[in-house]
């Protein structure tokens, strides 16, 4: 049975009439065409499908649509319009933190969630903060370095 679910998506109010058990990732990708959110495992293990829900990192492959009722969801398509994104992007390129790029949108959102909770993390905290996001290409060091650089240069942004 379809039902109405209202939430905020990338700053705009949306109302979806759909099966409330439908996975958020499918709603985003198939219904709304927001394909920056990737599916790597479908089981909550890889973080490629990360979105921000009320500012915290969430795996959209595990979220039924009903769970986002009244919440604020930000995907990479929304986040990429921000100043914080611009800085993270520059730091990701300078540190070489992108290879195949499949984990990258999720990683960037993980970085955002981490830095908003802790604007000045040490390396340990960064590693902990992104430990739910798998990357098979980089070995993580460059991603960690990029986030540390963003934290250093992002005075006042977070």
């Amino acid at each position, binding site marked *: 049975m379809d039902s109405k679910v209202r939430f905020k998506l990338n700053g705009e109010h949306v109302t979806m009439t759909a099966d409330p058990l439908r996975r958020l990732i499918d709603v985003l*990708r198939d219904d709304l065409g927001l*394909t*920056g*959110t*990737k*599916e*790597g*495992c*479908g*089981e909550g*293990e*890889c973080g*490629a499908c990360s979105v921000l829900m009320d500012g915290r990192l969430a795996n959209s492959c595990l979220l039924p649509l009903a769970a986002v009722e009244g919440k604020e969801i930000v*995907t*990479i*398509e929304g986040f*990429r319009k921000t100043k914080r994104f611009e800085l993270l*992007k520059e730091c*990701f*390129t300078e*540190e*070489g933190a*992108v*290879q*195949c*790029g*499949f*984990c*990258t*949108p999720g990683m*960037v959102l993980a970085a955002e969630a981490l830095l908003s909770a802790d604007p000045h993390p040490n390396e340990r905290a*960064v*590693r*902990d903060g*992104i*430990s*739910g*996001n*798998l*990357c*098979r*290409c*980089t*070995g*993580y*060091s*460059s*991603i*960690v370095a990029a986030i540390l650089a963003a934290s250093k240069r992002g005075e006042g942004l977070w």
Partner: protein
Amino acid sequence: MKDEARIGKPMRRTDFDDKVEGTAVFTADMDLPGMLHAITLRSSAPRAQIARIDLPALPEGYFYVDHRDIPGSNVMPSPILDQPFLAAGRVNYVGEPIMLIVGPDRQVLSDILKDARVHYLEERPVLSIEDAEAATGGFIYADKPYFVSYEYCKGDFERAAEEAAFFIEDEYRTGYQEHAYLETQSMLASFVDGNVTVYGSMQCPYSVKESVQAALRLGPENVRVVQLPTGGGFGGKEDYPSIPAVHAALASMKSGRPVKLVFDRKEDIISTTKRHPCRIRIRSYIGREGTIVARDVDVSTDAGAYAGLSSVVLQRLSFSVCGAYDVENLRVRSRAYATNKCVSGAFRGFGGPQAFFAVEMHTEHIAERLGRDSLALRRSYFLEQGDTSSTGGLLSSPIRLGEIADALEKTSGYSVKRALYSNSAAREKRMEGCPTPLKGIGISMFFHGCGFTGSGEKDTLKAKVKLKKNKDGTVEILASCAEIGQGSQTTLRKIVARALDIPVGMVVHRYPDTGRCPDSGPTVASRSVMIVGRLLMDCALEMKGRWKEEDFEVTRSYTYPEGLCWDNDKFQGNAYPEYSWGGNVVEVEVDPLTFEVKVTGVWGAYDIGEPMDDRIVAGQIDGAVAQGLGYAGMEVLTVEAGRVLQDNLTTYAIPTSVDFPRTVACLIPNPYKEGPFGAKGLGELPLVGVAPAFAAAVGQAIGKRILRLPVTPEYIMRLMEEEAEDGF
């Protein structure tokens, strides 16, 4: 050279912006009007005849596709022709594709799949190398238990072995490794008016094209293959993508609509290729003066249900297994056994990681028996310029193994730590119930042959590239190199721009499209920069001489460098056009209670000729080392009764950001005269030597010899429980 002028000075990757912004269109993100989806019905039996399949009636707009829908050949074009695209009456492994269900709604497709019933007449499966060796009939492949069997010798092995004083022997085992690229296998095909276009995630567009042509019985002009951004490959998208590509193409041909096929993680793990498990026996013969006079190696790999690339993987393994050392007399015998398990195949290193694990651990053992320091022992056997390789090929370029070892000493403090951690009194004190971590450090030395094995570059691939100058002054690279995250689009642009002396921004390089790009060979074997890059450089140099012309094309084909030779029947000569070399040091702490291993330091030193982009090189090293550490200590994949037990990313655990420290890496310059601006191969080298350095470190920490991979806490516990006399 001033740093500013060096080609290796990092530049912003050309495939960076769309990836970070989430606008890069991967296959799953692509949509064509009227597109349908496909889902695969797979075997749940390891070895069986298919008696019957009960299928539910289909709703309107849904289709079944099985082997009877294949108008052409139902055999995948591989070195050995044995693998069907869709099972025809029998299955040989759990996960083997039987048929496809095609239609508009993915949920409906899953429901239909659940209702489909395959009835099997099960046969006794072959489940291990030992099973295969013991078999006297009922073979999986032809009339023998293996796909290929090789042997080669160097020097006078028999005599040297006879005259030796004694020998030292070991048997090593290695496990599977799953690629676990973050993007699963994905393909989209569109068949219109007798022509098919396939878009997808792949390393080798021309291999996919060859398969689609064969299966659909289409001419080369009727099949076009376009690579899309690819979420990691590591060898897992070398030959395997031909299967889903053919599936999507068949489904599109039958339904008359574009069809997308995206694997879920579980089916990707159970049905795609893996790194070969293997058993390696090495016996080294020691002369009266305590020197290694001969070596006898016996390699067996578990190749799985179909031959795939097992023959060529076995060749590389066999040519690498004598290590970076000059031992005069050798005999190497190897076999790839057929078993009723998923197909083993290409994975970064291509047999190298197994080979170097065995020979490096064996070297540790020899040093211990001879009472010598293992690094000093290694140094006394390092290959040098002018020596010959295991297959007797002249090593004509400078070899800088000594400098690699020196660099590792300097950065890691290896020898000092090694001596410190071997203080046995301290170890005993720790072992007496005092729960301080056990420390160890290990080293490995290794190489990777760049490019295809043997004369493959000349006889099989015959790479072709094209460089096109446009009216507006831009220059386009036309080659079939796939960008799979390794940075080839950036690197190849840099090479062309440098040769033409124009800004990199003036060079265009799109994802390969067989409709426009000549076949420059597959994106494998650490060959893109060294082989394809060189051809492009030559094109660019010619173009530079004709720069005044407005728009024109320059093409080049591979020519075999002078002075190389290869006999593929006897396995004699230059097994590779050139080698990259490296060394690793790994330092660990082993928890004396839980036997968890913590890596406290990783160092690498590599000779890759000249780096084409320092940052891309560093990224390749970091990523390969992490995969190597995963292979060494944490990635466990077991197949029981033909079924993969770890079929998701929870149970098949790959490294996360908290598992390992940063790698400290340095490069030892050694420009290669045939490579573009001196470059050699890079992508695989930094993976091949990680596991032995890790295992040697754990071995020192616990005072036991490590004989298998992965080195899990359970394995360490078993070793600790064994009799003390087994250890050092």
